[in-house]
């Protein structure tokens, strides 16, 4: 029976994935700055990439390209890598949409701090809807 330390040491990629995930979650929950929250979200997603890639590791495995000189070669599992290509694209899209939101929030609220935004919303509470500050961004000249 290996000790807990040895167990963790032999599974170090998982330890790093969990650490990264927790740091990311902490940033999302505890940071007030909207951009920092997005960074936290990215950390969380990166942790998942790392997790997937480490489950694709095969001991002594090589690049998963057929090698006719060595028919007995052991290959890494390429499937998790392929899945992560998709997940990376998804992650980039989410970051892009989130940053677009932050730009528009900055225009509408003049701040990117969660506390200040909530205070502004609280001040608007009970105001008739038509008089609430609009979300529409000023439309650029000759835009799409």
């Amino acid at each position: 029976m290996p000790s807990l330390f040895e167990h963790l040491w032999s599974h170090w990629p998982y330890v790093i994935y969990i650490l990264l995930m927790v740091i990311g979650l902490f940033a999302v929950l505890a940071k007030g700055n909207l951009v920092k929250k997005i960074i936290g979200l990215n950390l969380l997603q990166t942790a998942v990439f790392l997790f997937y890639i480490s489950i694709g590791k095969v001991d002594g495995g090589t690049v998963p390209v057929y090698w006719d000189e060595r028919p007995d070669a052991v290959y890494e599992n390429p499937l998790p890598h392929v899945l992560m290509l998709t997940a990376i694209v998804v992650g980039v899209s989410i970051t892009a949409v989130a940053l677009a939101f932050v730009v528009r929030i900055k225009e509408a609220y003049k701040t990117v701090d969660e506390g200040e935004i909530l205070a502004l919303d609280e001040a608007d509470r009970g105001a008739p809807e038509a008089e609430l500050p609009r979300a529409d961004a000023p439309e650029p000249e000759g835009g799409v």
Partner: protein
Amino acid sequence: MAGQLPALAVVVPLLVALLIPLVSRFNRRAAWWMVVGALGFAVYGAVAMLLDLCGSPIGTTIEYAMGRWAAPTGIEYVVDRLNGIVLTMIAAVGLITALWMRKSIRSEISEKARPGYYATFLLCATGYMGMAITGDVFNLYVFLEIASITSYVLIGMGRTRQALYAGYSYLIVGSIGATFILLGIGHLYMEIGTLEMADIAQRFAANPELYDSSVVRTSFAFFTVGLAIKMALFPLHGWQPSAYSRAPSAASLFIAATATKVSAYVFYRISFSVFGADFLISALPHIRDGILILAVAAIFVGPLLAIRQRCLKRLLAYSSVGQIGYIMLGVVLLNEDGLTGGVIHFWNHAAAKGALFCVAGVLVYRTGVSRVDALAGMGRTAPWTSAVMTVAGLSMIGVPMTAGFLSKWYLGAGALDAGRISIVPVLMASSLFTAMYVWRLVQLVWFAPKDTEPLVKEEAPWSMRIPALVLAAACLYFGLTSTSVDIARDAALSLGLGAP
């Protein structure tokens, strides 16, 4: 063409959505027609598949291997009765919303943003259709993200700046949920080594000792928490009220009537068709009890929170929290009646909540506000809309002869069957709270003092009235006939409950 329907029902809306921004450069009026056409086709596809399945023995599935790559190598679309029901719900609500939204969009979205709105809306519907139809867990994640990202954008397109913040908050919370689901898929793959749902189920059936693996249990935990965030299961419903109330009316109509229920469907699929019913019954009885407690808490707390809301859309959002509780209760009761009740509630809640959000949308369209007290006296000026609200409200309470009654009846019967009598009083209390907030609306609409000046000056335009009437008629139709119950019971039986 019939053999290609599973693929076409998803691919046609997807391609049309991508064409909309292009076509809109030449013809601004085309976008709406394209949305209606694509969703009309999706309705045809979903209904044709469901009818086809209803004519065949229980347990039949329509399978479609993408690009003829047979599963488990390729990605397979699988339609059985359960997701036939869900697909019909998404496509039908999507089409009704599309028909309803034209005027509402004109008043709420700037002209420049409209083609983008239509394209995003159609993509969102495609994402949910894909989530329902796919038979591959990773493909499920991809469609989930398509549906999620587009809903963040739809919500953020509301008129006030609060919509931006609501969209952003939903994005953060929703992405955490989606990442958890991705981790669930990863842990499952790590232990089982395949992503095809039927294949995973087979391996679980062949090796029951896999149920004891801590990796499999971790996977189920990630799935449960991730999906609970996505479906706004109490106490993870925090994102829902501001998202629904700040979104444009047309977006909140579609998202409220379908989105959270698709995630609930995924939970059905994961519990029964991936892990297998035995997993919850024998391997994790305490987790089953835990989910049961959360579902019952949602049923109790949702309507209770709704009573004191001032904004109509917010009120409806809190009532959705309770309604998701009903659907989740259906899963964890794990018997025929309970499941039937949960499954018919997909349609019943979509009809009732859709109709109520139509009314909220008309309120915003006619008055510019969504306060509950703006409804005062609407019965005199807008009798049709008020009648829709009353019928849908009665269905939410669960009055006999409306659809909601059947859901509650079967869930109650399921609870008794499972020997959990204590759930029945909670269901009754929930109906009582629902009656309290629905009655508040009904009283404002029909029994306002004679001297109140109604804020709603006119009846809704026909383009908004007819879709709302169709939804209200559905509430009555499902309540008076046994069509939906028969289909739902067969769907529940085809899930395979395992040993009772």
